[in-house]
């Protein structure tokens, strides 16, 4: 019987079976950022331990870093942010870990930097103290988020105590229509399977829709796996994967390339691989998706209606009531036409060059509505540079948007970028939780980056398809 990618990689990375029944799993790539690592370094310092494989850990600063050049001057104005920044600099220096800091032009959101530098590769296990680590699964890696104590485990031992997950294949059939993107596919399946539908599972994203996506789109889909409850999500590596990695700074060099590709091909799921579960989702009639509530699963097609409270029972009903209470929308109404105050293009979900290119193409020749403030935040300083070489910065600025430096920005607002009061944000990020974007009463509507542009132009949730040529 054939095996799937998850089973193959889990097996080849199994160090030992532990007395507790858990598996000790080798971690091939460990990524760090400044929020979830300082306590981990403190733990290993306290215990007098060393970092076992410092060359397998890479770090950057992304969550707290301001996104304007002025605010990035050291020391940072916010004293605690400066302290966190100084900690990751010192910790990486003391333990011999590569730090992609702002002075190197390699700084960016950790899940964007990993693939961009070519440190993310197929057939690896990847761990990071961040729930959006599944992003790296787009390359055929088994990538997952961990907590800070586990960050310390990886630093000290390059391993983790884990239990294997069950596997579910999500087969996306059909073809996406113009204006419908990877983000819409992600929101659609999360809405279908629920915010906890993936608990206990690793997801394989497969089928013609996935095969047709570029690597950026695959990263968007894998990035959102945790929003549907799945800690791990991956795509099988193919020629697009290899082409993306070729020539990246840390990718295998020419003399090792063929051997690398042979290994990468060998980890893909076998044709007769078995899964614990399989779900088919046809995407032929998929529309742009928007969230209306306070979890990513509370998403509807752009022209659909928000649910009626009366169509739910028991605890499910309470969740819906709570969402309406927080968001303040008319029950059963439509999201299209809802006024927005902030438009945000960026984050580890949708802050890559392909996202910025698509957004620029839509906004070109239009203006951001006077009632809207729009931020475009490249996912990394390299993306910023590439975008500027293509003149994208000028297109955004001409339209009235703000062009920023790389960071997590408004996705979780641990930096100066925040919603104020009850502001409504049209956001290309990944979470619409209560208070997520920095105001305890602020409201987030998740959508694709091109849908964010349409909302910015019209000052309200709008259909991007009328702005798409051809």
């Amino acid at each position, binding site marked *: 019987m054939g095996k799937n990618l998850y089973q193959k990689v889990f097996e*080849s*990375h*199994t*160090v030992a079976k*532990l*007395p*507790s*029944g858990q598996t*000790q799993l*080798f971690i091939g790539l460990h990524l760090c950022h400044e*929020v*979830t690592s300082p306590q981990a370094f403190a733990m290993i310092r306290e*215990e007098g331990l060393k970092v*076992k*494989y410092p060359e397998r850990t890479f770090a950057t600063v992304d969550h707290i870093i301001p996104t304007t050049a002025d605010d990035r001057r050291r020391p940072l104005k*916010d004293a605690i*942010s400066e302290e966190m920044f100084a*900690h990751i600099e010192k910790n990486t220096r003391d333990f011999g870990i590569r730090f992609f800091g702002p002075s190197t032009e390699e700084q960016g959101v950790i899940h964007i930097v990993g693939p961009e530098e070519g*440190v993310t590769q197929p*057939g*690896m296990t990847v761990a990071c103290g961040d*729930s959006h680590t599944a992003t790296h699964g787009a390359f055929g890696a088994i990538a*997952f*988020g961990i*907590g800070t*104590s*586990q960050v310390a*485990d990886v630093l*000290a*031992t*390059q*391993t983790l*105590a884990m*239990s294997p*997950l069950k596997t579910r294949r999500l087969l996306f059939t059909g073809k996406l229509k113009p204006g419908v993107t990877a983000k819409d596919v992600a929101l659609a399946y999360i809405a279908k399977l629920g*915010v*906890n539908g993936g*608990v206990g599972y690793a997801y394989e994203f497969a089928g013609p829709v996935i095969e047709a996506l570029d690597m950026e789109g695959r990263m968007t889909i894998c990035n959102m796996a*945790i929003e549907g*409850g799945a800690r791990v999500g991956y795509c099988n590596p193919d020629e697009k994967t290899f082409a993306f990695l070729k020539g990246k*700074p*840390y*990718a*295998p060099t020419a003399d090792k390339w063929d*051997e*690398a590709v042979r290994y990468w091909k060998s980890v893909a799921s076998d044709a007769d691989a078995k899964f614990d579960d399989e779900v088919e989702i046809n995407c032929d009639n998929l529309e742009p998706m928007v969230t209306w509530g306070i*979890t990513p699963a509370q998403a509807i097609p752009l022209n659909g209606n928000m649910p009626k409270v009366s169509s739910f029972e028991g*605890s499910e009903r309470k*969740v819906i009531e709570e969402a309406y209470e927080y968001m303040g929308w008319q029950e059963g109404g439509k999201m299209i036409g809802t006024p927005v105050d902030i438009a945000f293009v960026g984050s580890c979900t949708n802050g890559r060059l392909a996202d910025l290119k698509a957004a620029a193409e839509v906004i070109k020749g239009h203006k951001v509505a006077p009632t809207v403030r729009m931020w475009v935040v490249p996912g990394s300083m390299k993306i910023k540079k590439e975008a500027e070489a293509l003149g994208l910065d000028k297109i955004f600025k001409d339209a009235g948007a703000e062009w920023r430096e790389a960071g997590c920005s408004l996705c*979780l*607002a*641990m930096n100066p970028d925040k919603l104020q009061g009850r502001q409504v944000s049209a956001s290309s990020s990944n*979470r619409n*939780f*209560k*208070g*997520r974007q*920095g105001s*305890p*009463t602020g409201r987030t509507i998740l959508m694709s980056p091109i849908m964010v542009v349409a909302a910015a132009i019209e000052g309200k949730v709008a259909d991007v398809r009328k702005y798409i040529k051809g």
Partner: protein
Amino acid sequence: MTIIDVVKGSGVPLRGNDIDTDRIIPARFLKCVTFDGLGKNAFADDIKGLEAQGKEHPFKNPVYANGSILVSNRNFGCGSSREHAPQALKRWGIRAIIAESYSEIFFGNCVALGVPCYKVDHVTADRILDWIEQHPSEEIVTSASSRTLKLGGETIALTLADGPRGQFLDGSWHARATLMANASKVDALASKLPYMQFLK
């Protein structure tokens, strides 16, 4: 190694599905380099939000102030991987959790902190929540070895998978020592992984 088995204390009833880690500890409190002091900010925004409506959050309600066993509903701890969330709960005083289900990462973080997360079905969760609300300061007892909850003379079966249960009972929930013991096996496995040679 510390063995974690029996937890005794009063309950804290926290009703609701999908209570995410941004709610347990809002992102602005993640600006820190130690976990000290997180306990007092647990559910900070939910507490304020309810206060504005003239309601009281269980983490603010004095009758639950000494509680140590948290009870909730479905998909507790979803969202961010921040260990700050279980750290905040533990530092507030929580020593065990009972809910219908958990996010994977949150559950793993709780294991690493020595806080057992037990599962029960929806009807049982609501029944336990009702009971605690009626008997707010009465002691209840969870046990990892027998996988049970004792409340008011009744014994209720709890679910806890063998792996984490084993870790609590042999003390290896604090995994580092166990993992370090296999250092030579780790090196042997690493030397066989093709990609260890690929990195420039």
